[in-house]
């Protein structure tokens, strides 16, 4: 059976971010609700227009049936609803599921949200302990492994095979911070130099504290509808041109490789659906839970050749106005926000905003096609999307 193309069939017509940072007055559900309300207002739609809802998971508020819980909280009774868990890849995968539901006539307006109160809803020790649970309970956790440790092993392998340096990884954090300073809602407000990243407290060699993503209170949301309906709404639509996913493992001990991951395959599927290639991309929002990750993704998604991801940042090509494809123009998870699945969702929000234009100093001039990549686990689950200002 041939693949049903999702190209040009749906669009993101509303985006929203909650208040971000330390937001002690808000629950995780409240952050989702605030972001959803802002996304709905952005789209010019009413709650009753929503007939589908997708959400992810929550470490701080681990409800069973989170999708149903969120519908209940929001007073929604949709005909399409689920909570999906593919780690950080979840937001992009939710867009794919929403698009499939809309194309199949199972929903017309789908609200997609994610968010947690990770900064204030748990102690720092609880946060670290919860994230430790990502390691295999029987064959990894007995060794005191940690998520930074897993990514550190990937970074070390990349350094060995391609000569990637700590300076190059530090530049990812520094460039990303410069972008975050241009974003009014970013968690981090102070400048950050490469030297500061290199001097930060070591966590898991070769990664230091500032190679690691933030822990934020944050919620994000977007609204998906058919391309036909999108044309009648007030916000400029961002059309889905192509999307693909690929999954190779969950735990790092079972990863087929520490240097080649599923982003190559998810990206190829997205490019194929869109009929586009890496040379067509104007702006990219890549998953950046650790500084090594966007380096690898830039290579796998064809922004630069294999092994040159580190230089892509050190040479300034990832920066806005750097002459190549700017990456993580909102500040990414290293500097804008990270709160569970919301981290990757903000890359989608930012891509839509870049395609609409008018972002001032943060705007990528002439942005017409944006790439967003989400990954979950330990570079385990991948989903890549291409969004366009116009249909492809």
């Amino acid at each position, binding site marked *: 059976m041939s693949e049903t193309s999702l190209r040009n069939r749906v669009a993101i017509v509303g985006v929203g971010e909650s208040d971000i940072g330390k937001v002690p007055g808000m629950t995780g559900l409240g952050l989702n609700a605030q972001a959803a309300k802002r996304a709905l207002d952005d789209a010019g739609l009413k709650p009753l227009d929503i007939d589908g809802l997708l959400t992810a998971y929550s470490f701080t508020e681990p409800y069973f049936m989170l999708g149903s819980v969120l519908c209940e909280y929001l007073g929604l009774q949709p005909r399409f609803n689920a909570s999906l868990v593919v780690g950080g890849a979840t937001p992009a995968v939710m867009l794919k599921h929403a698009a499939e539901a809309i194309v199949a006539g199972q929903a017309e307006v789908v609200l997609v949200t994610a968010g947690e109160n990770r900064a204030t809803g748990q102690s720092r*020790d609880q946060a*670290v*302990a919860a*994230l*430790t649970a990502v390691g*295999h*309970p*029987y*064959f*990894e*956790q*007995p*060794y*005191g*492994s*940690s998520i*930074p*440790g897993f990514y*550190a*092993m*990937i970074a*070390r*392998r990349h350094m*060995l095979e391609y000569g990637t340096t700590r300076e190059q990884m530090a530049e990812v954090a520094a460039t990303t911070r410069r972008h975050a300073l241009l974003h009014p809602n970013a968690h981090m407000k102070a400048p950050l130099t490469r030297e500061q990243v290199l001097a930060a*407290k*070591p*966590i*898991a*060699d*070769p*990664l230091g504290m500032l190679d690691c993503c933030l822990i934020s209170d944050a919620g994000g949301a977007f609204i998906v509808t058919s391309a036909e309906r999108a044309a009648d709404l007030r916000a400029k639509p961002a059309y889905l041109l192509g999307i693909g996913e690929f999954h190779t493992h969950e735990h*790092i*001990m*079972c990863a087929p490789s*520490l240097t080649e991951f599923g982003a190559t395959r998810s990206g190829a599927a997205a490019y194929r659906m869109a009929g586009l290639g890496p040379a067509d991309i104007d702006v990219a929002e890549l998953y950046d839970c650790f500084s090594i990750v966007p380096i690898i993704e830039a290579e796998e998604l064809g922004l630069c050749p294999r092994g040159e991801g580190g230089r892509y940042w050190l040479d300034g090509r990832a920066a806005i106005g750097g002459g190549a494809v700017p990456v993580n123009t909102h500040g990414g998870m290293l500097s804008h926000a990270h709160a569970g699945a919301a981290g990757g969702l903000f890359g989608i929000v930012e891509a839509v905003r870049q395609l609409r234009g008018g972002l001032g100093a943060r705007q990528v001039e002439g942005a017409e096609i944006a790439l967003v990549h989400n990954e979950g686990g330990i570079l385990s689950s991948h989903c890549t999307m291409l969004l366009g200002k116009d249909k492809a």
Partner: protein
Amino acid sequence: MTETLPSPVVNADSAPYWQGAREGRLLIRRCDACGQTHFMPRHLCPACWSADLRWVEATGRGTVHSFTIIRRAPLAAFAPRVPYVVALIDLEEGPRMMANILGDDALDTAIGDAVAVCFEDRGEGAAVPQFRRAGGRG
């Protein structure tokens, strides 16, 4: 030590593996249908889905595929051990597994180091496979 290190969690897939560790033997699964060995223990072979599996004793020799030095422990029980090495070990038989590198020279670990299995007591006779640097490169 203020908190004890985690003991193995034994289930139906892994009971012989952990029993082997108690006896100082590193057991892995080999598929009689396709001949492949795998880690972690499963009900069926992830290469061909045959359930015709047997336990074989690994030589315990391997090489370090990658590693990190943990400077901030994820759990209080590991805090007294910081800094310590977490590594991915490629066993001579093929499969890859995670363990710590123990020993006075653990912090000198490099990718490609030859390592040999040892067993660390985790209380009440339970043990987890661990590795020590064996000298040389694999």
